[in-house]
């Protein structure tokens, strides 16, 4: 093989002995700090070509013709492909609904939709050739919100759709609708002493992972293709890629390459099929790397949402009822919209006890950019709205906002609006208590003794002020506010999905030492799954040396690296397979040595320190003697307890595997004259069940918190009523820098969930939920403004 940069195995030597519960270091850490780690954009093959994608400049248009002749004439061009070049009858793909064209045919439905592909010997050659493709577009009316999507004469995004939601939705431009009705909201409303309502809006957030969509497709001699790719779920990609190429799945061999972050944005395909098509057509390796502009068009975003909520409460602070309607904009193609609807509706009540609810959530088809998975997945939008409502209710009742939440907080045993009982710890009141009890940061921190900021000698460090180094204030007009929020997120895939994972574990003697090799298809996207897998193998097999095999499709599916599920599900699969390996090792040991010591038959046996030991600590045999030159190699699937779909009329059902909870306290300072916000501190408390790697857990919480901060004050893909994206760049789409991000103290609880491996609870998403509403609550407290929309922009604070 001529591939010179491809993923390698990761191994850790004897200096790292840690099992679960220890902050062991990442096995890929050294490669990542030396620049040697091979990300998907770093793949290289001699003689490789570069692929480029021509995209639609229109949000909605008929394609009358595509003329590629001038592009073909460009020197250095090896292929120009359009819809007509697709090799099979399978022209579409999709996570749940196959409605997304590989290349547009007859019609484009969103700005940036792929229309044609070019392969050339230099990326610039490919770009220039693509610019020579002549596409005759006839613009069509644009559907951009609920009113235009469901109007009587609205153009249908997918006429004749026959997916399994088509029959129950009220309009063909609605992807999915999920009502949830429990108790009697109208009757309960009559008991309320106060009623508050509000309309809230969440802008379109981007995952903004730093590693661009990229990969290398290498045509193979057997007619198949090897694809080196950054994704969140290899087997889901494979299931969508192979039929379009007309290849059996075993001829599309996928290897996970270094993934530069994901956050949901790599759940859908981007350039996978395109690179394979170009490679198979040209017979040459083809690399595609999106630039940042293209990346904004190349993946789905967080659903923007409009949410209407009503809550009532009695004078003594008990919530009587909740009604809500959540409208999510799914954009041109379905992606994960149905599941996002399921989450938004089933978690719309928040972590509170409310027996009487009337809930409806829908996702629209529009000509806006497609939206799908992003960290928090439907729960983020709901949390922003219900937490604003909690502050309003508390204010209306004259109660402390934290005490009001604690009074209504759910706990173990609470029944969700879906009828599902929360059957593991739900320490909602406790995590609120913990964030509230942390010491507050000192006032007027910008008055440093040295004044070492941009205005030396003044005693003012402008870096601690709103506006920062822009030196826009020395404290004039700056007011402080403190706000709180708490949220609930499900862990794992829900609604009856067969959410299994597979792990292969091999134990053998290498160089005189027992070594475990863990092989899964889990996408390591930065979260630290590889670290945790090594820890689990050490704990279960009692060995020090663990090798993590590159993730590929030569082993069974691990499911997606999303829904905070991988440590639970693939971690559970690794644990389970290790247990099977242990049983096999003990069986070998009994056969070899059983006659020499009665404990082989009578005692509880463990693997520890490279030896078989009794539970009393007596050493029976070193693993090297038990195994000798024999390898134990087992691959096995593992499942958590099953869930069931929500009823389409009532929303009832045991839909979720597990819930996770985080609370935040935000401290902000606002320059009320310029509308600039400085988040001073963003404290978080979260229950994680069991911290398998405490350092990684805290890293997840701080990272998730910061993405929530971004949604609160800066992050939004701006889409005009023409459906066109206005800011597809890091110049115009802002994510928090280190200057925008405050100190993030974290308090971690470990209340075991008895249903989960080691009692663990998925960590990654919950902190993204409550961060945003906590910041908003603090800004409201500072300014007295209502602020029903995120992100908050300066003009919202100054009224200009």
């Amino acid at each position, binding site marked *: 093989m001529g591939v*010179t940069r491809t993923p*390698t*195995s*990761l191994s*850790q*030597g004897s200096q790292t002995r840690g099992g679960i519960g220890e*902050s062991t270091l*990442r096995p890929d*850490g*050294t*490669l*990542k*700090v*030396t*620049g*040697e780690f091979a*990300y998907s*954009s*770093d793949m*290289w093959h001699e003689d490789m070509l570069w692929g480029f994608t021509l995209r639609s400049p229109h949000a909605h248009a008929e394609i009358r013709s595509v003329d590629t002749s001038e592009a073909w004439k460009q020197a250095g061009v090896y292929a120009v492909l359009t819809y007509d070049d697709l090799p099979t009858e399978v022209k579409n793909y999709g996570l749940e609904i196959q409605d997304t064209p590989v290349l547009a045919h007859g019609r484009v439905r969103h700005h940036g939709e792929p229309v044609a592909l070019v392969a050339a010997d230099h990326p*610039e050659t490919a770009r220039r050739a693509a610019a020579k493709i002549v596409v005759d577009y006839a613009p069509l009316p644009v559907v951009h919100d609920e009113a235009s999507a469901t109007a009587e004469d609205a153009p249908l995004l997918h006429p004749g759709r026959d997916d399994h939601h088509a029959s129950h939705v009220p309009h063909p431009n609605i992807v999915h609708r999920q009502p949830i009705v429990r108790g009697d909201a109208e009757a309960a409303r009559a008991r309320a002493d106060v009623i508050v309502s509000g309309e809230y809006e969440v802008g379109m957030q981007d*995952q*903004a*992972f*730093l*590693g*661009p969509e990229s990969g290398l497709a290498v045509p193979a001699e057997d007619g198949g293709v090897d694809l080196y790719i950054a994704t969140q779920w290899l087997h889901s990609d494979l299931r969508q890629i192979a039929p379009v190429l007309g290849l059996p799945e075993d001829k599309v061999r996928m290897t996970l390459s*270094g*993934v*530069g*972050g*994901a*956050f949901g944005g790599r759940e859908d395909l981007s350039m996978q099929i395109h690179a394979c098509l170009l490679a198979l057509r040209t017979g040459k390796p083809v690399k595609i*790397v999106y*630039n*940042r502009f293209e990346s904004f068009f190349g993946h789905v975003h967080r659903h923007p949402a409009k949410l209407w909520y009503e809550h009532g409460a009695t004078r003594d602070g008990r919530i009587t009822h909740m009604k809500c309607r959540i409208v999510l904009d799914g954009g041109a193609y379905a992606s994960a919209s149905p599941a996002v609807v399921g989450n938004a509706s089933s978690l719309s009540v928040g972590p509170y006890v409310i027996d009487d609810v009337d809930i409806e959530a829908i996702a629209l088809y529009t000509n806006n950019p497609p939206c799908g998975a992003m960290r928090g997945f439907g729960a983020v939008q709901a949390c922003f709205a219900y937490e604003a409502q909690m502050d309003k209710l508390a204010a209306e009742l004259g109660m402390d906002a934290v005490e009001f939440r604690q009074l209504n907080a759910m706990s173990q045993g609470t029944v969700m609006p879906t009828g599902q009982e929360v059957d593991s710890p739900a320490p909602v009141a406790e995590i609120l208590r913990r964030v509230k009890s942390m010491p507050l940061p000192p006032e007027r921190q910008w008055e440093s003794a040295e004044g*070492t*900021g941009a205005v030396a000698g003044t005693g003012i460090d402008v*870096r*601690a002020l709103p506006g920062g*180094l822009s030196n826009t204030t020395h404290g004039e007009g700056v007011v402080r506010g403190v706000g709180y929020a708490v949220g609930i997120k499900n862990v794992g895939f829900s609604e009856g999905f067969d959410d299994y994972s597979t792990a292969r574990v091999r134990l053998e003697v290498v160089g005189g030492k027992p070594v475990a090799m863990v092989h899964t298809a889990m996408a390591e*996207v*930065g979260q630290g799954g590889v670290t945790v897998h090594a820890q689990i193998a050490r704990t279960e097999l009692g060995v020090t040396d663990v090798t993590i095999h590159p993730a590929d499709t030569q082993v069974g599916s691990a499911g997606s690296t999303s829904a905070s599920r991988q440590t639970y599900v693939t971690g559970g699969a690794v644990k389970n397979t290790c247990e099977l390996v242990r049983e096999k090792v003990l069986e070998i040991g009994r056969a070899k040595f059983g006659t020499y010591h009665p404990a082989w038959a009578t005692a509880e046996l463990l693997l520890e320190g490279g030896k078989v030991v009794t539970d009393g600590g007596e050493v029976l045999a070193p693993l090297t003697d038990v195994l000798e030159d024999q390898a134990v190699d087992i691959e096995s699937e593992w499942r958590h307890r099953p869930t069931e779909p929500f009823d389409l009329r009532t929303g009832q059902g045991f839909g979720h595997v597990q819930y996770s909870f985080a609370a935040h306290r935000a401290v902000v300072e606002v320059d009320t004259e310029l509308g600039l916000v400085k988040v001073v501190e963003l404290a978080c408390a979260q229950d994680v069940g069991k911290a398998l790697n405490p*350092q*990684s857990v*805290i*890293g997840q919480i*701080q*990272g*998730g918190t*910061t993405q929530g901060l971004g949604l609160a004050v800066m992050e939004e893909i701006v889409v005009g009523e023409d459906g066109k994206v206005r800011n597809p*760049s*890091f*110049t115009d789409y802002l*994510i928090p*820098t*280190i*200057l925008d991000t405050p*100190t*993030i103290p974290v308090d971690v609880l470990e209340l075991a969930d008895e249903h989960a491996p080691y009692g663990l609870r998925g960590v990654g998403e919950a902190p993204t939920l409550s961060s945003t509403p906590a910041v908003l609550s603090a800004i409201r407290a500072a300014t007295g403004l209502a602020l029903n929309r995120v992100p908050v922009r300066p003009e919202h604070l100054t009224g200009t």
Partner: protein
Amino acid sequence: MRVNFTVNGRPYEADDVWEGESLLYVLRERMGLPGSKNACEQGECGSCTVRLDGDPVCACLVAAGQVEGRDVVTVEGLADYARQRAAGGCASGACGDAKNTGTSVDAAQRWEARPADSQTGEAAELSTVQQAFIDAGAVQCGFCTPGLLVAADELIERNPEPSDADIREALSGNLCRCTGYEKILDAVRLAAAREETQTAGTGA
């Protein structure tokens, strides 16, 4: 066009460079040094930060032709660079006159990106700031890490005892989407403290 420059102490000649190519493209695609990352290619994210005659720059914003005759240090050369700095020498010529302190042709021809001796990087010799990033948990997906390492190393070289505000200011051009920056701050504090201890230990 042809471009001659020095990368991590090694003289390099690039042929057939198209005039529009960036230093980043030449490093990644022509030299086989993909450590400098391509996250935005418009100078906003800092993932491609390298030292150009000692100054931290975004390699994506430097035209390849601009580096003619100049010295570049990338993340791949950071450990060597830090070691030679500690020894009072200079890896790239960036701390002095390149003509006098540059690497010999013989040494340059033997130069390889580290770690050359292990696929897993186990045996790599790391600079203080690289080790601190691993130890502090400042690496998650790692895509921002090379640029941050180059920027953080330059900060500590210039300001051995940076305050938190100094660290934030120096690294404000480097986006990270995974960590929330807390552990990056921890790592830079740790690296500065370790450098100080080492310097004190050598009596320097």
